[in-house]
């Protein structure tokens, strides 16, 4: 069963674990679940987040200053195991995961029933040639990114590899948190990508910041993932209102 397949459009929120406070994650997850978010992406902070814009960079470095570590993050999730029922996805750069030990990490993820992993600097070819076996051992599906520029055949390949999770569509070629308009050209490309993904759900992320944009995205994809805009709201303690306005 693919937990990301639903017959309704979905909304997911990205939170940086350990931001703004070391122990903020618990409250954030429970609140988001209560507000009806479909699934949550928990960001593993990293010192050198090369695909992220200033907002996520800042949350990441504050989380690290707060003392967030991957082991602690997993412990925090463990403590919430009986309270969080919506799917959890872990998202982070590869290095902290490698350093933790891929086997150890995946076995913890399995125990926590993590629904999928997103490791943006791991490409589908590296995954297939070097890492697939160990991921398979713990049965954790990996989610890969595509962009509007990804060639069609590659989209199909990614969709196939992600058949037990989803494909993450980066809305335009840019780092996280850059505003852009979903113009006609983009939305028809999204629709085309949606077709190429077949049965694998396609979610749009990077740069979704409003209800309007969400609705627009819903016309062509299965759901949206919101990170920067949510974290900006967290900064001013208005995240509850933000999510309310979004849903």
């Amino acid at each position: 069963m693919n937990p990301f397949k639903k017959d309704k459009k979905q909304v997911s929120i990205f939170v940086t674990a350990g931001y703004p406070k070391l122990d903020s994650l618990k409250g954030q997850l429970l609140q988001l679940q209560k507000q009806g978010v479909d699934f949550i992406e928990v960001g593993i902070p990293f010192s050198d987040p090369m695909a992220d814009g200033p907002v996520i960079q800042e949350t990441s470095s504050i989380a690290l200053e707060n003392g967030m570590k991957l082991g602690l993050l997993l412990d925090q999730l463990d403590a919430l195991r009986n309270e969080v029922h919506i799917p959890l996805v872990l998202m982070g750069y590869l290095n902290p995961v490698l350093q933790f030990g891929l086997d150890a990490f995946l076995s913890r993820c399995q125990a926590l029933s993590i629904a999928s992993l997103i490791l943006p600097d791991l490409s589908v070819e590296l995954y297939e040639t070097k890492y697939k076996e160990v991921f398979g051992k713990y049965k954790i599906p990996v989610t890969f990114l595509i962009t509007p520029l990804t060639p069609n055949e590659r989209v199909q390949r990614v969709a196939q590899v992600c058949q037990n999770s989803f494909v993450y569509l980066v809305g335009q070629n840019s780092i996280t948190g850059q505003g852009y308009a979903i113009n006609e050209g983009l939305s028809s490309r999204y629709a085309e990508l949606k077709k190429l993904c077949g049965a694998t759900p396609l979610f749009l992320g990077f740069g979704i910041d409003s209800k309007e944009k969400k609705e627009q995205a819903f016309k062509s994809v299965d759901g949206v993932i919101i990170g920067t805009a949510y974290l900006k709201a967290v900064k001013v303690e208005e995240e509850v209102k933000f999510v309310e306005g979004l849903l």
Partner: protein
Amino acid sequence: MIIKVCGLTDNQSSMQVANLNGVDYTGFIFYEGSKRFTETTLATAKQKVGVFVNASLQYIKEQVIKYNLDVVQLHGNESPEFIRQFPKNIKIIKAFGIATEADLEATQLYEGLADYFLFDTKSESHGGTGTTFNWQILDAYKGSTPFLLSGGIGLESIEKLKQFTHPQLAGYDLNSRFELSPKVKDPDRIATFIKLLNMKTTSYLDTDPLGFYGEFGGAYVPELLRPNVEELDAAFNSYCFTEEFESEFKQLLKDYVGRPTPLYLAGRLSDKYGATIYLKREDLCHTGAHKVNNTVGQILLAKHMGKTNIIAETGAGQHGVATATVCALMGLNCIVYMGEKDIERQAPNVQRMKMLGAEVRPATSGSKTLKDATNEAIRHWINHPDSYYLIGSVVGPHPYPKIVAYFQSVISKEIEKQLLEKTGKTYPDKVIACVGGGSNAAGAFYQFYDNPKVELVAVEAAGLGIDSGKSAATSVLGTPGVLHGSLTLLMQDADGQVTEPHSISAGLDYPGIGPLHAHTIATGRAVSISVTDDEALQAALELSQLEGIIPALESAHALYALTKLELKKEDVIVVNLSGRGDKDMNTYLEKFPNL
């Protein structure tokens, strides 16, 4: 090894697969119970295999004639008697499902009847399960008919396939793991498989198709950068070995950079250390360091690619200056990212870049030094995929390490010629170079990597000392990790966060080293030595007063290695003097106030 791809039909992806180099047999499944059942085949020059399961001789013969099949693969319970009825000039592959050693016994009855056996994962459905079986069982196969290995082989099987050997193993049968859906094959994956399989790393400089030197390297980049690195690799491979490129590159290196740089026999230094010591004078390059060799090469590549906006990262500012220089030369826009801290520390180089027309953008994130400037440059590249990222050392995602090493290889190519003139031999006993990211070292070692007679000495900055917590000795303190797009040795904490290095020399102040160096150091081909801030200062002063050459602080690290190595009278040593000391005068002034 024979590569057979099975489950093809007459569609476009099948045609692409049949056209791939390295694919020998194309398989078409004439079995209605299969998801890959086909009633047609392709027009291909490759050997065509028809796969049948318990079909009648009549039916099989009809298909052989109709589709001009070269080989018949029998994948059911066909008996030896049945096979004896086949015309002799049809090649036969007999398939067996294997789950235990006992399944091998049946093969004895078929010896001499088939050209090949095919060993597949045992299943009710006659193959196509997509899972592998335990190949070790085949150790018990002692027959004389060669076999193909089948069942669930995928890209992830490469390592194991390479380890599995058997005297009768003739090839591999690829199917379900190489398709986008049943009947739609993925030619990309098959091509990668063939490349990886055939790869022999004979040279330390060879990378595998994914860009790995041994276990280090690769392109760990987000999907957003995939088109960029692929475009770059294709452009480098197609352009940088043409006569047009080579003549332009050579011309600029000669007339603009001032190459060849001298190979200078340092007499007084030789006397002091009791060996014959040559200095490769990269300090005499235009802009004062070897960095410009690479920027000249890359700017020609960028121009060829039609790029007009150039971005770069810089630490001390040497690479930034070298980039700004060639951008001025070519009339291209130049943005250099530089850590906010480095901008303060390296004011004269900031001014040089500005005079050369470049924009210097501060990197204000993280530790505000070189690694953060690199992050910013990469982010800029993601947002502006039409710009050209001109990286300054043998670091970053594949193909950068390969490209930068190639452009710097001019250093050792000259050393070979110059040594021949001076010593009658083309190679020295030792080459010594400092390693920040490792571009001057890669260039100085390049021609000698595969000559085991030459000792390669990579000198890293120990900062205040290896154990001081303020060091940049990556090969000692680092562990494998991923930063800036490659898997390499990296200074990091237990949680995988990258740590801030320290060295008195800004050019060596980087938490990683190029994957080529990680590979050659890890495999013992190169040795690494660490030299502290104070030792480097001492070596800088010594060279100034013995030879009248004020070296860059980076190069001074390489010089100090002379003290640490055991040298013999007859040894011929080359020290790569990567840069001149002008940029370090402030540090020298501060450290040697009472000269």
